[in-house]
């Protein structure tokens, strides 16, 4: 019971959140912010696998997000709505409710395959050179989407609203919010289990000393592939969810700016700290919203805060530690490493 306390608390939190959103006890704007927080948690914690735990420098996370966003959206629009390009729905629109996780997963798988574009070069290069490759992949994805007119090119792609509406027709609940809560929880759970197993710690060994890792029995190629695919796959699912919040996506959303934003969250929270990534995704999203009245000046203030942070706390808020290390009392309830003994 104690071991799964975190899970129960999260479930309770989710149910309360869904209930108050359903009864419109918080306004649509706040609901939107909550949903973006969820997306940002998925993005930052999944990037932390690469930049934090594995010690590589990926700066093209938005590219994988785009792959997931487009694949999921196209699948949903094609399968569940009558669309100008794709014609009448292939399946009953009400099936969207049950099949949404499937299409989302398909988007994740597509993004994971795109992750191979980075994973395979990473066998031979690392550090700065690999960073350039991730940057290139980001551009490749964005430019490809821009040039495929069938899915709207640079104008963007829409129609996901209808998918969400047909889910609401089946049962009147804030479905996007529900899916985001489910997949945010799932992401954190997956990453937690991955990095706390001896198997997953192989990537930390790669960060600390790749040569020693390879010679002392870690199949570094396999682990790099797993790490990159896991990270980009989760980013893809974040993209798929993101696309359904506003019901509209365009390639301009998934530029290097977006990737940078995710990177900032990772470094703000601390490299190799899962709770740090979650915390910083919440703080960063809320901060951006709070500073909205400043308008353009916001983009001066936020980077300035970042400079201050890097000067006085370069390891980020938690930096390689978890919340349970900072507040050992928490460990009584949340075991950070479920040790098998």
């Amino acid at each position, binding site marked *: 019971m104690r071991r799964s306390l975190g899970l129960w608390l999260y479930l309770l939190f989710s149910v309360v959140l869904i209930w108050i959103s359903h009864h419109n006890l918080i306004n649509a704007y706040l609901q939107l912010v909550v949903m973006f927080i969820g997306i940002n948690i998925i993005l930052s914690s999944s990037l932390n696998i690469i930049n934090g735990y594995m010690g590589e420098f990926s700066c093209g996370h938005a590219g994988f997000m785009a792959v997931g966003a487009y694949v999921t959206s196209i699948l949903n629009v094609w399968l569940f709505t009558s669309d100008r390009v794709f014609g009448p729905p292939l399946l009953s629109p009400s099936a969207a409710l049950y099949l949404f996780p499937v299409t989302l997963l398909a988007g994740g798988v597509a993004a994971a395959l795109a992750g191979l574009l980075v994973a395979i070069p990473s066998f031979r290069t690392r550090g700065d050179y690999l960073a350039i490759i991730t940057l290139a992949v980001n551009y490749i994805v964005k430019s490809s989407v821009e040039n495929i007119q069938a899915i709207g090119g640079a104008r963007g792609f829409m129609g996901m609203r209808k998918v969400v509406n047909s889910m609401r027709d089946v049962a009147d609940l804030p479905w996007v919010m529900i899916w985001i809560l489910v997949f945010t929880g799932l992401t954190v759970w997956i990453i937690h289990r991955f990095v706390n197993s001896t198997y997953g710690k192989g990537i930390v060994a790669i960060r600390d000393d790749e040569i020693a890792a390879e010679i002392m*029995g870690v199949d570094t190629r396999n682990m790099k592939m797993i790490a990159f695919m896991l990270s980009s796959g989760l980013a893809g699912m974040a993209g798929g969810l993101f696309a359904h919040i506003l019901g509209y996506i365009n390639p301009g959303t998934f530029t290097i700016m977006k990737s940078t934003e995710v990177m900032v969250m990772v470094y703000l929270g601390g490299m190799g700290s899962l709770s740090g990534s979650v915390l910083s995704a919440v703080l960063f999203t809320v901060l951006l919203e709070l500073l909205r009245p400043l308008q353009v000046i916001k983009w001066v203030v936020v980077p300035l805060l970042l400079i201050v942070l890097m000067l006085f706390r370069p390891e980020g808020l938690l930096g390689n530690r978890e919340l349970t290390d900072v507040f050992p009392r928490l460990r009584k309830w949340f075991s950070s490493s479920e040790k098998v003994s």
Partner: protein
Amino acid sequence: MALLEIRNMTHFFGGLRAVYDFNLRLEGGELMGLIGPNGAGKTTVFNLVCGFYRPTEGEILFEGKETAGLRPHAVTAMGIARTFQNIRLWNTLPVYDNLCISQHFRLGYGLKDALLRTRRFTAREKNVHKTAEELLELMGLRHYAQELPGNLPYGLQRRLEIARALATRPKLLLLDEPAAGMNPGEIDQLIDLIRWIREQFDLTVWLIEHHMRVVMSVCERVQVLDFGETIADGSPEEIKQNRRVIQAYLGSEELSHA
């Protein structure tokens, strides 16, 4: 069948001949030494044997099986483990994790098991932890289990590196200058440790060393390299008397008078 057999192994780095026509046969159970002046190619030999480089020519047979072309982790899986000249521990992971992760190649479970915490995961992790616990105990590292390797004194870091190698359950242990940077007291401990390890774990030990005290008191047989070529091979006493070895280390008389 020999444990390790190296035949006519030659390795070039571009135009530089690092190792030339290297031959060795280890039957199993020996304490073998590899010495030579700086830059003689000793570490290159180790890098070739553990699969980090692929020999330009020649073959390496471990228990009769060819190792050339295998990636290092696969060679480790066959039963060859090593330590490094400049200690290469995973410094952000505690001592305990260092001992667990080197068992990575024989975890026997994958991503799915790690995420779902299947029965296989639980069983295999239990084995991993058991081996790590045993080694902590045997190698006297129990007290430092949750310490980061970088915080340990130098001698203990060396010891941990050996423990990490042992966690892979090797048949052949390669030690690359285990006594480098140690004080005389630590060296005495190391000599005892190497002998004890061979008995306790039933291993073959092959070591590179500059400290003659270690080589002479530990090794049963010594091979000497100079500019990549083997110039002598025999018992420590024979090596001590060998004229070519003395020349390689001290220079020839004609030169020193020139």
